[in-house]
């Protein structure tokens, strides 16, 4: 689908915190679709996440202590930029994202029509989103629109693609979960051209249990408010 020469300079950054159960499948899925430059940033896990990732052909960066997903992604992005990446993708480690969605996410950037492509689970009418989470996500969308003026249908989706230029302008300083909003704020601030692309989020009992609790949304909102007021 996407030319090999382009894939050679496309990097997939995966932040992982205790993902030994799913990281192998995630990497296998990506490699099968031709994404060989996979960077797993192990954010201070003490299980076999790093070992398995390395065994499955990923470049592993290790945070010696846990700093948060935002910090882990920035580390991976910095590495990718230092190694000549022309496109950088952020991808979840828990198996919720599909490698098959990547060509659609990358094409607008390849064509030069966008600097950033953001995955949205709501654009393709995906219907199995848990109700409470759906409500929170929709609230999140509204909040992003009000605070940053960004128009999205899914403001908290970890599947993103950046052109090199866009990635170079990113400076994720919010270490923890509020990094998602920080990325959106920076997209608007740097006037990057963004597009939303329909993607599928696979909900499994494991990923729902392992991932963020919906209640964490309160914490994220609080962090956002704090950052807006104090910085």
């Amino acid at each position, binding site marked *: 689908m996407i030319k090999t020469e382009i894939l*050679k*300079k496309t990097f997939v950054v995966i932040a992982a915190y205790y993902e030994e159960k799913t990281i192998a499948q995630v990497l296998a899925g990506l490699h099968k679709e031709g994404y060989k*430059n996979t960077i797993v*940033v192990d954010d201070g896990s003490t299980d076999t996440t790093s070992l398995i990732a390395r065994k499955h052909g990923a*470049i*592993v*960066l*290790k*945070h*010696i*202590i846990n*700093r*948060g997903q935002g*910090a882990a992604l*920035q*580390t991976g992005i*910095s*590495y990718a930029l*230092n*190694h*000549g990446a022309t496109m950088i993708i952020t991808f979840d480690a828990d198996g919720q994202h599909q490698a098959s969605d990547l060509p659609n996410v990358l094409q607008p950037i390849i064509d030069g029509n966008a600097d950033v492509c953001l995955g949205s689970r709501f654009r393709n009418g995906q219907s199995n989103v848990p109700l409470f989470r759906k409500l929170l996500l929709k609230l999140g969308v509204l909040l992003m629109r009000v605070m940053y003026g960004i128009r999205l249908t899914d403001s908290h989706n970890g599947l993103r693609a950046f052109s090199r230029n866009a990635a170079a302008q990113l400076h994720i*300083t919010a*270490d923890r979960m509020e990094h998602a909003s920080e990325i959106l704020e920076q997209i608007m601030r740097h006037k990057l051209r963004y597009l939303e692309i329909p993607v599928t989020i696979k909900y499994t009992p494991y990923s729902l249990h392992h991932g963020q609790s919906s209640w964490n949304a309160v914490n994220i909102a609080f962090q956002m408010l704090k950052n807006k007021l*104090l910085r």
Partner: protein
Amino acid sequence: MVQIIQFVGVAFGIFALLHVYLSYRKSVIRTYGFLFWALIWLSTIVVSLHPDVLQLIANAFEIQRSIDALIYLSIVVLFYLIFKLYLRFDDLERESTKIVRMIALAEAEKETKGKGKGHA
């Protein structure tokens, strides 16, 4: 007539002032910090000896009771200190991440050099 609270105020003020001074001498705190806290404790001693000073301040702000003025002022100062602490804490977190990131990237470079491979 000297009240007990006045006595306690002066005694504690002297003790705290000594502690601050010793900390400064041992280079635990720097000049700015020393001056700030020395001022606080000196004020505590002065106010304990002459509580009417407080009343002067209270009148200036048109507050009835001097102790109320003291409490309002203390609360404002506390909020400010907490705010500053919070900012410093935030900065510390960012600095820590910078260090952890540097280590992660340096280790990765060491590995690739060791393997003799390059990454496109």
